[in-house]
Structures are given as C-alpha cells and as structure tokens.
C-alpha cells in the first residue's frame, strides 16, 4: 500500500489482485446470494482506490480495508432492502402474460413483440435476454453490462409496463 501511494502500479496490481480474494472471502461469509459478491468487491476496490491517500502505515491495513468493506456491505444491505420492499420480483409473470392472452400463440407473439417495442431500450433488452432467451440473471447482467440489481429492477419495471400495455388480455388473472 505504501508503494501504491508512491505510484507503483505493479505493486498496486498485486495488492488489488490479492484483495480480490480477501474480499471474496469476507463478503462470501456475509452474503446470502453469491451473485452480489462481484458487485460488492468491485465497489470496495473502487473505494480503496479513491481512499488510498487516507491510509496511514502506522495503523493496521486490515482495519482500514475492512472499515471500507464493512461500510460497503451496510450500504448494500440498505439499498437491497429498498429494492426488495418496493420492487417485488415475480419471475412467473412473463409466462402468465403469454398464457393469459386470449389470442392464438402467433397473435400473442406479435402482440408481445409490439408491446416490447413500446418499452424503453434497457427494459426491453433485459426482458428479452432474461425471459425470452432464457439466460440466467447473472449472465443477462453480464451481457447488458449492468449490475444484477439494476437488471432485476429493469425486468420488474418491464413486466409492469408490459402488463399495462397488454391490458385486458392479461386481465383479471
């Protein structure tokens, strides 16, 4: 870390690579869903980067590092709680949208395509990748280059908007 503060990029590379494993173990013990681990590690590494001038070699490095990691974890819990409580995730809704359509399967497909075209690009992409093409949420988020929670938010909002667009076809069910 001292070399890093002096601008030694190879030492920094070595440090961050080893921190990757340390943080992976740290968050691995605390997370119930491992898919969030990478996001948290990356957030923490970014914070380590922006806070590197605050490290004082007279004090333990681990206390400094885990101070940042702990804060990132608490932040994550707060954000995640907000998403869980407001953005109710329903992965069967898409199938129900298709099944409940009164039209034939071809018509449904056409309706669905039209409805999807009315969605914002990100929501459309998220729905196509996650629900139509059958990628896992982790893979979909990688394909789209966004975080897992952002993907889930996009999928949920897409479902909600689709439900409104398809309206009566989805109907009372």
């Amino acid at each position: 870390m001292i070399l890093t503060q002096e601008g030694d990029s190879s030492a920094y590379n070595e440090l961050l690579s080893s921190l990757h494993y340390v943080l992976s173990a740290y968050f691995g013990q605390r997370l119930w869903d491992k898919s969030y681990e990478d996001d948290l590690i990356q957030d923490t590494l970014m914070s380590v980067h922006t806070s590197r001038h605050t490290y004082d070699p007279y004090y333990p490095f681990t206390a400094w590092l885990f101070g940042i990691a702990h804060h990132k974890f608490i932040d994550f819990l707060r954000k995640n709680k907000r998403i869980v409580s407001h953005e109710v995730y329903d992965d069967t809704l898409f199938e129900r949208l298709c099944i409940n359509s009164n039209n034939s399967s071809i018509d449904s497909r056409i309706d669905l395509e039209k409805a999807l075209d009315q969605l914002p690009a990100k929501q459309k992409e998220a729905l196509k990748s996650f629900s139509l093409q059958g990628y896992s949420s982790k893979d979909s988020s990688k394909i789209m280059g966004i975080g897992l929670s952002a993907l889930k938010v996009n999928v949920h909002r897409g479902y909600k908007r689709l439900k409104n667009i398809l309206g009566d076809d989805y109907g009372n069910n």
Partner: protein
Amino acid sequence: METTKLIYSLTKNLKPVRRLIHPIKRAVIWFVSSLLFVSLGIYWSGILQRFSPESANTFFILETITILWFTFSTACLAFLLSVPGRFKPRMIGYALVPLLSWVGLLFIQNGAFFPVFSVKILSSVPGGSCARDLATLCVVPALIIFSMLRLASPQKRSLIGYVGLLSSFGLAAFGLQFICGALSSPVHVLMFHVSPAVGLSLLGLFFGKVLIK
C-alpha cells in the same frame, strides 16, 4: 465489468498520492484557523466591549475551558470518523463527556436548582440574539471543517456532518462567552447556547450527506 478488467483499469493510470495528515493534526489545524476567524468576528463586531473583567469569575473560566475542550474533542471525533477503520465506539465519549461536563457545570453554578421551565426567568433574559450570533459565528468554522472533511474519505457522512457541525457550534458558543450579556444565568446558557448548539447540529445530518462526498 469483470473484476480483473477493473483492476487493470485502476492500475493503468495510477498516480502517486499525497498521504493525508493525521486526523488529530487536522483537528488542530481546523481549531486554530477557526478560532482565529471567530476571534476576528468578535473583535470586528465591537461587541467585545460588552464583556467586562468582573464577569470573568471561576465559573466563567471553567465553562470557557470546557467549551474549548468540547469543541476540540468533537472536531477530533469528526476527523477520526472521516478515515476508514479509525473509529471505535468508545470515541463517542469524545463528544459526550465534555458536553455533559458543560451541562453539569451549569447545574453546579445554579446550586443544583434548575428551574428550566420557569417562564419568569427565561423571559427576563432574552435569547433570540444569542441564537442568531451562535448561527453567525458558526458559519466560517463549519465551512472550513466541511471542506477539510471532504479531503478524506468519509464513510458515515451523516454522522460526520452532525459531529462536524457540533464542533463548529461549540466554537461559536465559545465566541458567545464574550458576546452574551446574560452569562450569569445558567438557564439562559442552557436554553440559548447549549440547546441550539446541539439541536441545530442535527442539520449536519443532512449537510453531511449532501456536502461531504
């Protein structure tokens, strides 16, 4: 983005950084510079004339020392909080102990009889101007401490904002010691010096979140 790519991008354009000086040293720098501004504020207002040597009794000196202790301690706490991994729960005492000592001193001064809700006493000592002076004197120290806290890497921004503003109000309360004409009334000091300082500092919870990033 994959973590390995992130690590590569972070190391690619690495520049040397200047290590931040120790939190306590930063607290000293803030304390000295802000004290200078508060002193200048008192002097330029011409209100120093209202302070008479007769009012400088033992309690006044003790109270002033306690306020300075409170101010410096809370500033230390704010700067310690701004560095990751440096805060320990027992450090809350840095702010709590001097604050309680200050209030305790006011109780002792009043002979342990404290008619806080006595309207008669409160109305005899107007306190509106004290609250206004407190807020005015606090502005420059608050601006300095917030700009200094921004240089670090604050994690608990709201808490840091609160503690930072608390120390600024502490310094403003020190200034009031030389401005206020009703220092002889502990009830007045409690109601119009201590309470506004602690209460208005709650604004720091918001300012900390907005200004310290």
